[in-house]
């Protein structure tokens, strides 16, 4: 069980790192939010399942971990939705391929 738990927690941490890389590297608020909301929710779920699978974790702790997971599963996507919606209403434009070409030209010239 400890081995399974370790694998799950490491997998969860991988998704956290992926979310962070996405937040730093992606070009606009929409794609960043996309990366963070999805990868982070999955990462947290994996870490929580990994913790619940640890030997010596009793039933009441598992219940708490499940509740934590449920809150995150509902709250994370909702918060991401609210943020991107607010950005769209504030006039933020999604990054397009044209922006990419322009950035490339400016970078090379």
């Amino acid at each position, binding site marked *: 069980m400890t081995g399974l738990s370790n694998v799950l927690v490491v997998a969860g941490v991988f998704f956290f790192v992926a979310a962070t890389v996405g937040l730093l590297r992606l070009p606009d608020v929409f794609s960043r939010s996309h990366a963070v909301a999805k990868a982070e929710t999955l990462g947290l779920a994996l870490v929580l399942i990994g913790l619940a699978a640890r030997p010596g974790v009793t039933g009441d702790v598992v219940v708490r971990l499940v509740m934590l997971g449920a809150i995150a599963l*509902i*709250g994370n996507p*909702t918060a991401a*939705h*609210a943020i991107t*919606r607010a950005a*769209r*209403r504030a006039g933020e434009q999604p990054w397009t391929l044209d922006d990419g070409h322009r950035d490339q030209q400016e970078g090379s010239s």
Partner: protein
Amino acid sequence: MIWWLDLMLFAVLVATAVLALRTRDLLTAVGLMGVFGLVAALLFTSMQALDVTFVEAALGAGVTGVLLITAVLHTTRRTTPVGRRSRLSRWFIVPLIGLLALVLYTTTGLPDRGDTAPPGAAGVYIERSLADTQTPNVVTAILADYRGHDTLGETLVIVVAAAATMLILRRRPDESAAVPAETVVGPHGSEVVRVVSAHLVPFVATYGLYVIAHGHYGPGGGFVGGAILAVAAILLCLTARDDISRRVLPRRLGPVAIAAGALVYLAAGIAPMAADGNFLDYGVLASGDVLPARARYLMILIVEIGVGLAVFGAMLTIFDQLTGRHRRTSTPTAPTEGEAAL
């Protein structure tokens, strides 16, 4: 305690504080202060000070952010550029550094983290609080019983803060209702947010009540519980229709809760005096089957309820005053088709 984790968190803490001070955009500063609260909460967790963690997470990373954002909407988003500092003001740094050195020096006299028998009053509290008050959580026993005067003072400070906000932002009846141009209250345009919030609010509120009642046995108590209750109320105001939030949270609820909470605490202080005891000395209320320790246990619960009411009322009152929730005459027009699609 992992020392490099502490060091890393502390570095992030200082960095966020400096960034928050230097940014010109006040909303960015508010966001950074939220991060500051979260990192501070993590630091407190690593010191195993879970009661403080709880307060910092609920207030520092939670309610304070909302209150500051509403305050920014009320005033201005950009800070005015500071002119060149005068030569004289530079010398103010000298006493500040001296003070910092003094504070750092005094920490060398503190007992180690996790010391179960520190010298002085702290050791006495740890040794006797369970027998004295039947309260396993030493922090709660100290806050609500041994140091009841301090906690009463802290509660009254919050009451005064809410009263000051009401006085500063009040409008005479003949003045036109001053409602901030951008408002945050009222129905949220997104159905997802509305539905999720409507389902979260009762759970958050129940959790707040649980935290108030559970302070004897776990981290928590009146301050955190009241703040969590206020989170539920503020979430409702931010997302639900005006008529719903006004019915659940009427105009007078905040001020009445503040007054009731403060009066409950003061009454708990005066009750022992009626039994020829000292102010806030609950032990003398023992009679018959109720031993002194049991009396103190029960009075701690009453005090926590009073603190919870006062904190909840103060947060709600400040939020109501800043958003002008009850002065808004009409609900904003329904979102247009294009906005509703977002």
